[in-house]
């Protein structure tokens, strides 16, 4: 392990609990390199996570860390950011964490456009509890709770977040690790609520059941199915079937919640409450 990674990891907490071949380690690596590139002081970063395999990430990284309950990471983080706006807040969640049990908080964080970066590990399954289907499991994919394939329609996390009002939305993968670092850097630098959806691989609870026998098969699947925005724009709907877009999907310059809040207080203090 090189010096950059050592610097940001709690070496005494390793080895981690993730299965061999899991995508979570790649994401942690990309994140660490992004923080290093951003040049943030470690003590100015707050990493908040929910519960799941992905949620364990806050145990391993040496920042201010807050490991919360299943689904509530964004609500905890909202309180944290309001109380300490100076902190750079990153919120790590699984797809179940962010869109099933915590889906409510996700759409409200998007709507508020509060300045933090949500990093969603979308492995299309509940990894930690043994492979039950989640709101992002593709239709017809197999899961312990879907022996004949999932029949529920699934969420497109990036689209959902754009719709709910997030001002920066990007999608990366655990295969395109370098691009992922770029996207995290861009999301962090963006003022407002940034969402980085990461298509990642859970070989143990998703791949094995879905004809992607090895972690390599899963990574190759990502490589073959991911499309850059520019390329996708030139393709027909038919050609785009079963493919997904990666890169920056949406960016808007809209007022940020904490700043708006402070502005309102300032305004009221000055007695300037006429909103015209």
């Amino acid at each position, binding site marked *: 392990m090189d010096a950059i990674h050592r610097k940001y990891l709690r070496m005494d907490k390793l080895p981690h609990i993730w299965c061999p071949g899991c995508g979570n380690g790649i994401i942690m690596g990309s994140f660490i390199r992004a923080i290093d590139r951003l040049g943030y002081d470690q003590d100015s970063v707050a990493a908040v996570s929910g519960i799941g395999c992905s949620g364990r990430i806050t145990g391993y990284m040496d920042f201010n860390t807050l490991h919360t309950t299943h689904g509530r990471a964004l609500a905890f983080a909202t309180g944290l950011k309001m109380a300490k706006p100076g902190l750079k807040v990153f919120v790590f969640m699984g797809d179940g964490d962010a869109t099933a049990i915590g889906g409510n908080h996700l759409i409200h964080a998007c709507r508020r456009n509060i300045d933090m970066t949500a990093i969603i590990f979308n492995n299309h399954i*509940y990894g930690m509890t*043994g492979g*039950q289907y989640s709101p992002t499991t593709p239709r017809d994919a197999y899961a312990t709770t879907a022996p004949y394939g999932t029949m529920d329609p699934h969420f497109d996390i990036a689209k959902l977040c754009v719709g709910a009002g997030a001002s920066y939305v990007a999608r990366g993968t655990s295969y395109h690790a370098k691009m992922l670092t770029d996207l995290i850097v861009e999301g962090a630098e963006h003022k407002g609520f940034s969402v980085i959806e990461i298509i990642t691989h859970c070989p143990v609870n998703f791949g094995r059941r879905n004809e992607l026998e090895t972690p390599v098969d899963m990574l190759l699947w990502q490589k073959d199915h991911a499309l850059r925005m520019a390329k996708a724009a030139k393709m027909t709907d038919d050609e785009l079937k079963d493919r997904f877009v990666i890169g920056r999907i949406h960016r808007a310059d809209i007022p940020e919640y904490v700043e708006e809040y402070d502005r309102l207080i300032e305004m009221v203090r000055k007695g300037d409450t006429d909103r015209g």
Partner: protein
Amino acid sequence: MSKRIGMEIALAAAEAVALCKPDVVAAYPITPNTHIPEHLSDIVAEGRIDTDFICVESEHSALSACCGASGAGARAFTATSSQGLLYMAEIVPVVPSMRLPIVMAIGNRAVSGPINIWNDHSDIMSQRDSGWISLFAADGQETIDMMIQAFKIAEHRDVMLPVNVNLDGFQLTHVVEPMMLPDQKEVDRFLPAYKPYAALHPDNIVSMGALGMPDIFNEAAMAKDQALINSKKVILEVWKEWEEQFGRKYEPIGAYRMKGAEVALLTLGSMGDTAEVAVDELRDKGVKAGLLKMKLWRPFPVEELIKAVKGLTSLAVIDRSAPFGGACGPVCAEVKAVLYDQKERPAITNHIIGLGGRDIVVGDFVKIVEQAISAQKKKPKEAYEIYGVRGS
């Protein structure tokens, strides 16, 4: 005819629920109960039961969906553990108020924090006063039996209340034991088809979950309380029927070597089996020890407790959840409240053990009994002890 099986207890619990043919199962996974609904989903997928299995997005939705289903007259089942039960908590007290006979299995696990996935009883104790009937299984066989009994008790016209069946996480959920699994014919004979008292139906309009103003709230609470207290009669009847049909006896407080006992342990759940071995060892040494294994937690078996402790000089009450600043653990609080009015009662000690999966071995119970005996002469300074804390 019942069949002898060797199976993980969580799977056996699911098999028992399947024999009751629920119309709706709604669940969200959480360790260590997960294998129960997961195995039920397999059974549904195999076409062995005609059940709607709903993979909801949280426990809050699981119990809500069960309420909706039960309100429409369906037999509904769910299962959870720990934080899952806490997340359900908004709905938990609503179910008995609506008199919906939902059955829930709880694979007992410590609540956060620190985050812990192992067993204790802090999850169910947080919902102690929610108005559900609460049963505790001590082993795999009791788990199977109670799952089936639960539907009959819940749906009895004189009860119409939800029942939770508690089985210790890992110690029971993940252990393989030999058990007798009744067959469909036997269960059909024991458990009649569910006939709802009132069901939401477009042709027969009813209103459930209505607002209760202060002028009615006391009465509603009293009704809920009475329904729960009165359910004991039915529970005893159902257990009698079970014994007649299956030959296995159930009592609110089971007794082990209580004849002539002077000191006894009182346990809930799977600890009882370990405590039995401790009692045997103590008896071999000439200590007149016995064991009370509580199976019915709500409604609290008041008369049975009074009877059970007759003749005891010491009673060690074991709690598997901490009261945090309270007078004593939840089980002990009940025991003391019941025995306070009794002219003769044993000296009571309270031991909080096995928190968050901390192992409890035979020797621990032996030590606790010894402590209980000495407490009779010299009252301990504290009303309860958190047993086995390192460095204390």
